[in-house]
């Protein structure tokens, strides 16, 4: 099939049946299911070790009340990691390239942290709007700026993830097209472009993991401020 550059971002469907739900839930199938054995397999041991490490790292700065968020943050992290990494395979659909999905993840979670803060400790939450030690004339302007920055956080979270992944995927497409187009005329330059593609792919692997981590880390930071 002849692909254009944006076919990978369109919602997948087979004979009119939308497959986006399967595509989103697919990474969960790759994780080993819990068995009733104490030591099951290497994969489940590695998964256990990884999940323990992630949860501990995320929950270290939070106090006891924040530990309620452990499950959602860890599962979010694992989900983002897997979807991002699986999206690097050819002909796959990456759900996290869709702004709708990223905003759907970011907005409720950010809003939840905000509400928790405003409900339990409203003074401290609002106090975060003004950094310490600002000179008095600057206070009104700074409050406005901080409020804007607060309200723009969910947008930032969603768009950051979307933009990074979409840009990466597009770049891969473009450079591989360039490689293919040059291969008939200038094979040497084509090989150079292929080298660039290798490096780019390595970068994309790193970006995939980092973006997942950053998303969850920022959410946990917002939580720390407010819990």
């Amino acid at each position, binding site marked *: 099939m002849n692909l254009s550059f944006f076919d990978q971002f369109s919602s997948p469907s087979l004979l009119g049946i939308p497959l986006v739900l399967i595509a989103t839930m697919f990474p969960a199938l790759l994780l080993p299911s819990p068995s009733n054995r104490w030591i099951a397999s*290497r994969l489940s041991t*590695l998964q256990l070790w990884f999940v323990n490490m992630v949860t501990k790292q995320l929950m270290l700065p939070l106090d006891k009340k924040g530990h309620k968020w452990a499950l959602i943050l860890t599962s979010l992290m694992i989900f983002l990691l897997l979807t991002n990494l699986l999206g690097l395979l050819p002909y796959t659909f990456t759900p996290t390239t869709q702004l709708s999905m990223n905003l759907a993840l970011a907005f409720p979670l950010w809003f939840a942290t905000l509400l928790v803060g405003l409900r339990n400790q409203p003074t401290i939450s609002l106090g975060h709007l003004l950094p310490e030690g600002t000179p008095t004339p600057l206070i009104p302007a700074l409050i406005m700026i901080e409020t804007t920055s607060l309200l723009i956080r969910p947008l930032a979270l969603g768009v950051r993830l979307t933009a990074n992944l979409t840009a990466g995927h597009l770049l891969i497409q473009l450079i591989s097209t360039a490689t293919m187009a040059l291969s008939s005329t200038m094979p040497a330059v084509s090989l150079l472009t292929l080298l660039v593609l290798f490096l780019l792919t390595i970068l994309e692997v790193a970006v995939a993991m980092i973006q997942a981590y950053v998303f969850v880390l920022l959410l946990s930071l917002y939580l720390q401020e407010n819990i």
Partner: protein
Amino acid sequence: VLHTTRPLHTTQQSLAPVPPLPEKGGEVRHGLIPEEFFQFLYPKTGVTGPYMLGTGLLLYLLSKEIYVINHETVAAACILTIIIYGIKKFGADVAAFADKLNEEKMATALAMKNESIQTLQRAIEEEKKEQWRLEGRSYLFEAKRNNIAMLLEANYRERLLTVYNEVKKRLDYQVAMQTLKRQKEQDYMIQWVEKNVVQSITPQQQKESIAKCILDLKALSKSAHAAV
């Protein structure tokens, strides 16, 4: 009406012991294709069968443009190279790490079990020692009894000695009193006798005795002169 038809409470329900997991996973060639596939094709096509099948399939797809080579192919080649390189380089290390985690888990559990076994064995030995000590108890009591008897004896003798000394002191006192009294009487009598004697010497007698002494002396001196 009972809606379940399975037999209830016939066996002891227990999920343990579970049968052990197989040591190694299924044999896989080239990381993807199970060995059983090759064995399945071997009787009809020999060793090269599956490879011919793969190559033919690939060429068919390519030549009929069922699979179109597009930019994704190049991207696929890249990512697959990276994945295979990663697996080959780090696969063994990751497996060893997972095995190490499992081993540590088992080792802690085994250590706990062994430690409790050790504690119990030590307790058994201590108990046996206590029983042995029990047998020697009579000797211990005998020795203690002897000790106490000796102490009592020594104490008794000490007190006896004290009594003897006290009594002797009292008797000595009485004796000393008596001697003192006798001496005093003697001295007094001597003094009295001397006093009376001295008193009885009249002056006349005194003169006479002195004259006699002088005469004696003269006589003696004469004889002494003669001797010289």
